């Protein structure tokens, strides 16, 4: 069964909200969060790709998630 127009709109709004939340956090946090949760890279791989030390990657991921949490509060997973 294909999704209804309402479902498509809801899905689109959902994606927009997540995109907006991501855009509002600092780029280095956004990059780490996207590479981790969208691209599924391991922390070591992110460190390699970004050229940042592993400790920095960990701290960016932690802070990035902390910034995203209030922004996405109430959004349906």
């Amino acid at each position, binding site marked *: 069964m294909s999704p209804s127009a309402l479902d498509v709109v809801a899905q689109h709004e959902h994606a927009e909200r997540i995109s907006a939340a991501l855009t509002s956090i600092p780029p280095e946090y956004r990059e780490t969060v996207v590479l981790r949760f969208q691209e599924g890279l391991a922390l070591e791989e992110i460190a390699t790709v970004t050229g940042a030390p592993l400790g920095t990657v960990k701290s960016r991921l*932690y802070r990035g998630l902390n910034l995203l*949490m209030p922004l996405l509060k109430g959004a349906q997973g």
Partner: protein
Amino acid sequence: MTRDVHEQARQRIALGGVDGLPEAQRTWLQTHLHECESCRDYAQGTDRVIRLMRSVPIAASPGLVRTTQKRVRERTRQLREERERLRLVGMSCFLVGLSTAITTPLLWRGFEWVGHWAEVSSPVWQTGFAIFWIAPALAASLLLLGRGVHIAGKDSRLQR
């Protein structure tokens, strides 16, 4: 319970979740989550954000794609250079080892011959041989140390 304990628990949740941790840390975190309501809320919040992130394909902004591609290319170049440098160092080590294995007995005989010709005692020419044998390596090491030359390049991780 100190603030550090909660901070530590939250960092572990954010970085790997309960399942991604080693046994000892997982047990510690599970115990902590059982006792601490705010960290339990944090874990749920993190889980929700991660599920949200994975639930929709988000097109990365062109800026992010450009920056990441640039970094990947830069890192690939660095890794290629490091590999090339290490290959050269390895080859040099092999050649030096081979040349040492071949020339040391010849040098030894040469020093022995000169020692007999100059009519000096064995310990004298043997000491001379030892100094001659070790001096170039020692001089090169001191020179490289003085110049701060390392195997890896300027930007390489091997220097960190």
